[in-house]
């Protein structure tokens, strides 16, 4: 239903909550309110869970309290929880699709900005704040205004060594960290169609890094095949009925968009970030900017501050930047395909720096172990951990130390994101693996060709 002022009250099909949702549960407690649709609400322990050491007796009492609080809130309100010890536990944006809870055409919200991930399956999914989480818990609805429409078309064949992460970093570098503010972004084109659900997840996940409300890929045969036989997805005749409805979700031909952007997949090189915003991204064969060559004073100031924080000399070649640590994980890049891509580079090689691999979910972890990927990571000298948000946001204790430089598959290279003073370079899992074996930022294509880097 739409009010005269243009805001519509929308039904929420799925609501995911995590440890950080405690503010919202607190608001319910204040009002003595109940969760109105517990069967459409699902809890996942991910933000504060340890990825190493005991997960049953969490050593840090504050972390233990955060996890226990979620367990108590879910139990009190009859909300199903994928908690610690549950074989389905993982990062909420990996678990939703994996369990078949995320479906095309659903409206999905979660108190986490990377909720845009679920658009990979054709859901309309976006992150909300604590007040809105409380509103959804109490009413199962949310007030929304129609967003602007933006289409990003990526056509052509992706060269070897290039992944969805490179595509999305190229997009953000091109349109900027506010290039899609207030927009629903549809990703289309042959290169997007060719992506798996994992790749599409990476792409939609980082829509928020361009400021978008949400990112979406039209559901297709690959989406339907992915969802078939997932635990919470419909079955039998209901599934067929769903596929019929989902098939109609694609954008009409000739539909108008407020903004259109086009990229040629064949021209995308492996991308890494050098600065403190995801828009500070360049192809691996480039040099970092030199503020003294910048004519706009504000821009020069920005470059100087970013390079200073990152501890990189102006104009330095990206491939000459040595790293201290690697991290493979997060809701952006910790699905099975990501782990396979990293393992393919690491197989038979050793990492020159320490690092942690944290699978996107406990099920991904199990599958990776069945495929022997854990052995490849361990033999390369990396730590094989449990699933959670881990070193992407560092609130579970997995931190990059001050001034340490980390090649990371995560989504934000903000100042202090991985820990106070931490320096983050974002890139694909294969590129993180390449950085690990060389000890510096490196072009994975060279390693894949067997060349010296």
């Amino acid at each position, binding site marked *: *239903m739409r009010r005269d002022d243009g805001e519509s*009250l929308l039904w929420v099909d799925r609501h995911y909550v995590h440890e950080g949702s405690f503010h919202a549960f607190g608001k319910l407690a204040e009002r003595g309110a109940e969760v109105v649709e517990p069967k459409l609400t699902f809890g996942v322990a991910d933000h504060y869970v340890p990825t190493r050491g005991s997960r049953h007796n969490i050593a840090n009492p504050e972390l233990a309290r955060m996890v226990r609080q979620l367990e108590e809130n879910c139990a009190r309100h009859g909300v199903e929880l994928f908690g610690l010890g549950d074989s389905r536990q993982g990062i909420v944006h990996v678990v939703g699709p994996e369990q078949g809870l995320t479906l095309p055409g659903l409206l999905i919200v979660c108190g986490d*900005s990377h909720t845009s991930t679920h658009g990979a399956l054709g859901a309309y999914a976006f992150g909300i*704040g604590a*007040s809105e989480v409380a509103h959804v818990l109490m*009413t199962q609805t949310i007030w929304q205004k129609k967003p602007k429409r933006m289409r990003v078309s990526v056509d052509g064949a992706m060269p070897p060594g290039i992944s969805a992460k490179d595509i999305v970093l190229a997009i953000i570098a091109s349109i900027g960290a*506010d290039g899609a503010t207030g927009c629903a972004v549809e990703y289309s084109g042959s290169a997007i169609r060719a992506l798996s659900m994992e790749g599409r997840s990476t792409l939609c996940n980082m829509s928020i890094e361009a400021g978008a409300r949400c990112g979406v890929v039209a559901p297709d045969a690959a989406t339907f095949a992915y969802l078939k036989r997932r*635990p919470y997805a419909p079955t039998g005749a209901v599934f067929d009925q769903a596929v019929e409805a989902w098939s109609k979700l694609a954008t009409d031909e000739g539909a108008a968009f407020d903004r259109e952007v086009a990229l040629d997949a064949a021209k995308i090189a492996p991308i890494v970030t050098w600065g403190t915003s995801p828009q500070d991204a360049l192809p691996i064969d480039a040099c970092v900017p030199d503020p003294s060559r910048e004519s706009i004073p504000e821009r020069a100031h920005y470059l100087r501050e970013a390079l200073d924080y990152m501890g990189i000399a102006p104009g330095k070649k990206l491939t000459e930047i040595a790293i201290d640590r690697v991290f493979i994980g997060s809701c952006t890049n910790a699905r099975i395909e990501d782990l396979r891509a990293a393992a393919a580079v690491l197989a038979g090689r050793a990492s020159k720096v320490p690092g942690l691999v944290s699978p996107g979910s406990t099920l991904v972890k199990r599958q990776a172990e069945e495929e022997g990927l854990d052995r490849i990571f361990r033999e390369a000298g990396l730590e094989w951990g449990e699933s959670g948000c881990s070193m992407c946001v560092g*609130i579970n204790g997995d931190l990059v130390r*001050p001034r340490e430089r980390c090649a990371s598959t995560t989504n934000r290279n903000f100042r202090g994101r991985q820990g106070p003073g931490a320096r983050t370079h974002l890139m694909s899992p294969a590129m993180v693996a390449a950085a690990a074996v060389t000890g510096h930022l490196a072009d994975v294509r060279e390693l894949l060709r067997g060349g010296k880097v």
Partner: protein
Amino acid sequence: MEKFTKLTGAACPINQSNLNTDQILPARFLKRTRAMGFGNVLLHDLRFDSEGREKSDFPLNKPAWRTATIVVGARNFGCGSSREAAVYALYDFGVRCVIAPSFGDIFAGNAMQNGLLTAAVTDEEAAEIMGSLAQTPELAVMVDLNEQSILCGNRTYRFRIDPIRRMRLLNGWDDLALTENYRERISAFKADDNVKRPWAVPREQV
């Protein structure tokens, strides 16, 4: 929610584009409860050095702006994470209005939910306001939501805000109170939708 109509106070310029919510409220403070307050950790890692000492060159630490009720920022203020605690931190510090050329989408929504005004001006206007404040730090800035105007020195600026958010701030309207009026229609929608989209509910687990 507290109403917002008019505000006059010290305005602190923070000239950083893409000032994300990780800067406004670093993640390690997210465990705090609302009652503990977030004001003393607002912009923590920009305000304080690694030893916890104030950085004297950070605007919020300068005498004229220590009790600022307005922050003037650059493009894409509050981008990034959805943490509402970024708004709590500004609010608890005493800030009731942020003036900037553009805002992170989720941040602006969270701000409105807590009675914090996000007033959008052009890049040039934001730069000009920051310039005036750099010259005269103690300049009191007046923000009028009814008029959608900002008075800074002898200049008046018009600011943009979504008309719905403006109405809600002016009246202190709460989302929940608004939605209460639709309870019956929500129930009717649900019943109808269960027939139309039986696939939309999670399959029962056995």
